[in-house]
């Protein structure tokens, strides 16, 4: 199990490959990659985080996922700092004997990372900069767990 909070880019392909390697106890690997989407006019994004809390909050989410699903491994990488359109923000990977567990755990981690890990996004467009508002749908997504 690994949680990494970093400013520098990560290599999504290499991480996926390494994560899926050498696993005869695992039948299913699910990965998620979050990308800075350009809805038109986005110049840049800045992600702020709470250094003292981020890693421990995410580790607690991973620990909970491990108690709820039969996982053989899990990985979370989340960047902070400035990001341009098309850049990769974060990734989650889960490994399990069966696919239902790997999918459920990956979605659980994503839902909790969205709304409970201490990250805040600021978007810069031609009109200026604004903090991204939390979406009700993201908060609602937690209720299914």
């Amino acid at each position, binding site marked *: 199990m690994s949680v990494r909070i970093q400013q520098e880019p990560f290599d999504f392909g290499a991480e996926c490959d390494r994560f899926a390697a050498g696993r005869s106890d695992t039948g299913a690997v699910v990965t998620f990659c*979050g990308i800075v989407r350009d809805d038109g006019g986005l110049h840049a994004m800045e*992600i*702020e*985080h*709470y250094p*003292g*809390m981020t890693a*421990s*909050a995410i580790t607690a989410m991973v620990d909970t996922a491990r108690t709820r699903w039969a996982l053989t491994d899990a990985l979370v990488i*989340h960047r902070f700092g400035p990001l341009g359109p098309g850049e990769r*923000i*974060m990734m989650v990977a889960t490994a399990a004997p069966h696919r239902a567990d790997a999918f459920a755990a990956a979605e659980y981690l*994503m839902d909790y*990372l*969205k*709304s*409970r*890990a*201490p*990250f*805040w*996004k*600021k978007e810069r467009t031609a009109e200026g900069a604004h*903090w*991204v*508002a*939390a979406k009700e749908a*993201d*908060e609602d997504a937690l209720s299914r767990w």
Partner: protein
Amino acid sequence: MKLDVLYFAWVRERIGEPRETVDTDATTVADLVRELSAREDRYALAFSDLSALRVAVDQELTAFDAPLAGAREVAFFPPMTGG
């Protein structure tokens, strides 16, 4: 009691600094919010709608009625938008 008080995202921008040390007798987070809000307009503005804020005590998310006994660090911020 001395508390490290941290601010993130637009809370940090409204208050104008990322952290400060506060000497306080507040017994709950809500007491601390009242005390800070009474101090200066920038605090009153940042704390004007608590439903738009989240709070962590010693790096654990908690509620505004949480006690501060033994706490060393309190952080205020908007709802998270990671992922």
